């Protein structure tokens, strides 16, 4: 009798213990997050006119499709908390997928079903043209505030005279490198060409792998997703291979593009980890922050994570413009996110106040200092506190010419066009020769332009 009573309890305990073990292992596998440390360095700014906003919209609830990369979710949470404290408006934050083509799909679903499930969303720099019919015109409410932002980005966010999104933060690709390792192996400056980068990466990797077998020379975003389109644009445009589509014509199938792509293909598994073809921003940043890479291509957000207290590479890295190909010059792919209000929102007034708060100078400064994003307000770039927190805003790195993805010309077919590009480049990185893949990408993009 006794054993019969004890059996179910034993089974339940064993199940709970096994589940706890599994959860514990998965958390350990996920690694530590430096996010909370970064966001804690500065308090969120107060909302100007908080009382007046509270009187009009206090008690309302809006849904914000926010950021998820690095420490950005923690930043959104801190800002939402302050916003609620000052205005009484509750902001429900739903982090979007870190892969921006999936985030696009999420917004496309919401807009095509006319759903009011979200009020404010982060919109990538390539999307205002596609989603314009579904977005609120922010010019009446925020036109004055938009004047402090960079004119180029505001122009990108204006479709047929409607300001469909407000600039939130800028983004551009840059090269992170280990200053201590460059010094150790006798290099005085970061590489200026891709061949130089791979040569330096090989020498450093060979040396470091004696003590750390997981060390690699160079990490970047090589998975088959939108991020690969961004990286590949930098490789090709900096080598004189064009920007996929130039002046209305598809130009990707050219010898210079093939040469630089074949160079990258030859380095997979040699100076880059073989698994780099599965890396998105998170994996590349983890490898570099853990001290397992000499060079990394990533966006500015990674700066604060590398510099955070407790990071193995804090104080041992710096940033520089990305290298270029023979006869070319360095470029950086334009990234950056905007904030848009859905036409189907039930609380457009409260939503616009949230956007007004987020795109104010005070909050952009907060974002740059705590999350190392690039402000879209030119005046902030001259602010000494901002320059101290974001050294990559120095003219050398920040003034690198920008390469833009062909989003305006592809319009609503941009997602599909980008997929044709990144699937093709993924095949090249995984072993196919560029000359066998580029003609296919060329014809696929051609078909979309018709």
């Amino acid at each position, binding site marked *: 009798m006794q054993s019969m009573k004890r*059996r*179910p309890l*034993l*089974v*339940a305990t*064993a*199940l709970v213990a*096994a*589940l706890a073990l*599994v959860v514990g*292992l*998965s958390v350990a*596998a*996920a*690694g530590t997050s430096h996010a909370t440390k970064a966001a804690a360095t500065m308090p969120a700014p107060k909302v100007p006119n908080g009382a007046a906003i509270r009187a009009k919209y206090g008690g309302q609830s809006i849904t914000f499709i926010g950021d998820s990369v690095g420490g950005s979710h923690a930043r959104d949470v801190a800002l939402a908390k302050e916003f609620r404290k000052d205005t009484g408006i509750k902001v429900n934050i739903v982090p979007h997928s870190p*892969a921006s*083509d999936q985030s*696009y*799909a999420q917004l*496309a*679903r919401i*807009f*095509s079903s006319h759903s009011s499930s979200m009020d404010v969303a982060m919109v990538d720099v390539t999307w205002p043209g*596609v*989603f314009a*019919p579904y977005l609120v015109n922010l010019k009446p409410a925020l036109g004055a505030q938009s004047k402090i932002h960079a004119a180029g980005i505001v122009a990108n966010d204006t479709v047929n005279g409607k300001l469909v999104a407000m600039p939130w933060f800028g983004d551009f690709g840059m090269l992170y490198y280990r200053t201590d390792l460059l010094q150790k192996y006798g290099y005085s400056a970061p590489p200026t060409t891709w061949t130089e980068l791979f040569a330096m990466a090989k020498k450093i990797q060979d040396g470091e792998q004696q003590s750390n*077998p*997981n060390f*690699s020379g160079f990490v970047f975003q090589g*998975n*088959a*997703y939108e991020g690969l389109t961004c990286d590949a644009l930098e490789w090709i445009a900096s080598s004189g291979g064009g920007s996929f589509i130039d002046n209305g014509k598809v130009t990707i199938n050219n010898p210079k593009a093939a040469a630089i792509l074949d160079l990258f293909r030859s380095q997979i*598994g040699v100076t880059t*980890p*073989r*698994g*780099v*073809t*599965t890396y998105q921003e998170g*994996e590349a940043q*983890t*490898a570099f922050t*853990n001290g*397992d890479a000499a060079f990394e291509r990533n966006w500015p957000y990674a700066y604060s994570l590398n510099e955070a207290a407790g990071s193995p590479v804090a104080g041992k890295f710096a940033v520089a413009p990305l290298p270029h190909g023979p006869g070319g010059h360095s470029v950086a792919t334009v990234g950056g996110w905007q904030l848009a209000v859905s036409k189907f929102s039930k609380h457009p007034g409260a939503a616009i106040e949230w956007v007004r708060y987020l795109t104010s100078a005070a909050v952009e400064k907060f974002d740059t200092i705590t999350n190392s994003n690039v402000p879209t307000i030119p005046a902030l770039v001259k602010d000494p506190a901002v320059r101290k927190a974001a050294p990559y805003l120095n003219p050398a790195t920040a003034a690198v010419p920008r390469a833009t993805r062909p989003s305006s010309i592809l319009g*609503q*077919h941009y*997602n*599909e066009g980008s*997929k044709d590009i*990144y*699937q093709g480049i*993924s*095949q090249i990185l*995984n*072993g196919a020769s560029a000359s066998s893949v580029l003609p296919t990408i060329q014809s696929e993009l051609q078909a979309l332009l018709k």
Partner: protein
Amino acid sequence: MASVATTVTTRRRRRTKLQRRQTRVAWLLLVPSLAVVALVALYPLGKTVFQSFTNQEFLALEPTKWVGLQNYTTLIHDTFFRTAIWTTVKFTLITVAFEFALGLAIALVVNSSFKGRGVMRAVMLVPWAIPTVVAAQMWKWMLDDTFGVINDLFVRIHLVSHSHAWIAEPSTALASVCAVDIWKTTPFVALLLLAGLQVIPQDLYEAAEVDGANALQQFWRITFPLLKPAILVTLIFRTLDALRVFDVFYVFFGNRPDTQTMAIYAQSTIVGDGHVGYGAAISVAIFLIIAIFVVIYMTVNRVTEE
């Protein structure tokens, strides 16, 4: 046989008023659930078939047009889809075979009585209990070639000479995703087969012992024949699930062209590219391919029963 036939005809001639009334009541009781099934299953299926004959786009502002069989003719020449079908079928054959073999072995072991059997039955379900996406992400990090624990372990015990990029390398990519799915779903197969094993009466084994049959003979002559219904149900479940696989492939590979499954290709066409009409044609094609497997199983089932 002849006697059965006469009984049937006699029954038909003698349908009484009571029987007809009972049939009517039976239909009335079934109508609500049939209506729900029609709404939830038949309506979306019908709508998908209809959409496959149009050129509907997700975010298009122009009205949708009827295009007849154009989507299907494009589909026949679509090499991406052909690769996806082949990847999915390969995955299905490998995983169902391994899961069945391992699941049967585990079910036989857990069916016999030993100390701690109850605990074992609970613990063995843990992989199945974890959400697939979570398990897939967990394994993706564990299999990583730079910071993954699997490579670290294998190198330490000298199973491999250096870290392998199991997921990135095309030669090991399918094997790695099959391994994760087998880890996850074998407990489910074991559970279904265990249920079938527990229905087999114990006295059959006792009689076989008396007759002098050894363990292997007992398995082939008693266990396997009586387990056939459970085996067929399990295989149908697993095959249909494997043909529709999405989560684990998506977490591991994203939209990598050489490892797309049919479901991933349909999703990226409809939601990513916005081609609802063409995507609907892909979905109908997937439905037909799965229907073929269902017909095969049903035929085997009917043949076995006779």
